[in-house]
């Protein structure tokens, strides 16, 4: 239970940080915000890595699929965001 309170605290505080930071993003950049934050949710990559490494066959299979999906999510998200942001320029 104590351990839970610890991680729950982190969860709540991170939510507050998220709200504080995201409200500063202008509507101009809302699409890159979605694709960029989406890439960050590819963090489940690290969970997938640990699943692949377990001896259990079923877990390894689940982990492998998760690894492909999460990597796709992270790489695709960061690359497409980079491509989009490169287009926002000021020419004066």
């Amino acid at each position, binding site marked *: 239970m104590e351990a839970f309170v610890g991680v729950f605290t982190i969860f709540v505080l991170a939510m507050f940080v998220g709200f504080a930071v995201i409200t500063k993003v202008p509507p101009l950049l809302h699409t890159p915000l*979605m694709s960029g934050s989406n890439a960050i949710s590819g963090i489940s990559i690290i969970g997938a890595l640990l699943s692949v490494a377990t001896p259990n066959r079923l877990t390894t299979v689940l982990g492998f699929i998760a690894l492909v999906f999460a990597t796709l999510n992270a790489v695709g998200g960061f690359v497409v965001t980079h491509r989009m942001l490169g287009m926002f320029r000021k020419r004066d």
Partner: protein
Amino acid sequence: MTSALIGIAYLVASVLFIFGLIGLSHPRTAVRGNLLGAIGMLIAVLATLIDREILGAGPAAWATIAVGMALGGLLGGTFALKVQMTAMPQMVALLNGFGGAASALVAGGALIDATDTSVQLTVSTVASGLIGGVTFWGSLVAFDKLQELVLPSRPIRFPGQLAVNLVVALIALGFGAIIVADPSATWAFAGVVAAASVLGILLTIPIGGADMPVAIALLNSYSGLAAAATGFVLDNNVLIIAGSLVGASGIILTRIMCRAMNRSLANVLMGGGVAATSDTTADEVYAGRVKSTSAEEIAMLFDGARRVVIVPGYGLAVSQAQHAVRDLTTLLESRGIDVEFAIHPVAGRMPGHMNVLLAEADIDYDRLKEMDEINPTMNQVDVAIVVGANDVVNPVARTDPKSPIAGMPIIDVDKARTVVVIKRSLSPGFAGIPNPLFAAENTLMYFADGKKAILDLIAAVKEG
């Protein structure tokens, strides 16, 4: 010692994610912000690879990891480099789905492997399976609707929909309860995911095309929350932090989108609010009042104009008119006319959709104005050009409290000296109601495809 090192690396990754999002607060710093996020991800992955479990797993596991990451990276990278800017909503929908699915699969694997099954582990596994399943299938449906493959983009509704959704949700929770009561009943996790998958489909089919910005923002938030739930399963801080950042982001965007339509989230999710309850028919509004115009006539309007505002809508994306619009902007600028763009928050199919399209066409982001910024000066605009937008410029939102779009903030183009509406026909927008703007005293209708109209307009201005 290693685990402390990994913990520190995860902290660094979390901090980089936060800095990355801070960077997105301005276009000047945004590219660097995104890179910081990517570096954070790289650090988290590298740190995980030196974990004892992975180092000790042997060559077979290492090969599996290498293949999985290469495959995912290749697919993701290819999609990201190939996708057209007009298809960005579909792309983001799909990526949301993959993120959600990955989180659910990891949680399932952790449940199967678990030796110490605490309540935290079982409850968060169920949450991850539920949210992940809804996200994956909801995103696939959203993708399909946006791409217009199988399902129509209009809302799909049937009698008793709410009750069916509720039953399916209860079934998912029932399977979840089995896991919490008996963690060795791992088969029930498949039940949770299966029911959640059905629920994801059912929740997304009633959302109509023009409401997609809300659906995508919401699914974005779900994909983050699924990752956070998996963080609780694994007791992993960086998953929890990254997941909640994304969750918060999606929630904020969802709220902004709903406010920009003056509708509640529940109303959007039910596909409601789109039935035409207004008692004025199209004939009453339009009969004998609509004035049709030509490219030459509009070109003459520009002769005396100093300030032109262009209002883009989804039609701009459909006809791929962004580059033509840029050429028109350059041409008008060269004649000393000030050109700006007025962008409604829900124009297009996802938050910020129009901005990306116009940026792609090399239009300076300083010219892209938010609705609240441009509305106060709308009465000083000589010519307002509406390209492929309808409901977001319908003055009925201000005047008729019984209209389905009553109270929705709109771009006040009707206050401009002259309004030119480029549109194929007088067909209604998503709200299904006639738009009195088209019949207004100061409005000229230019019936044509968006791109072709702008190209003709450019030719006419050059000749004139």
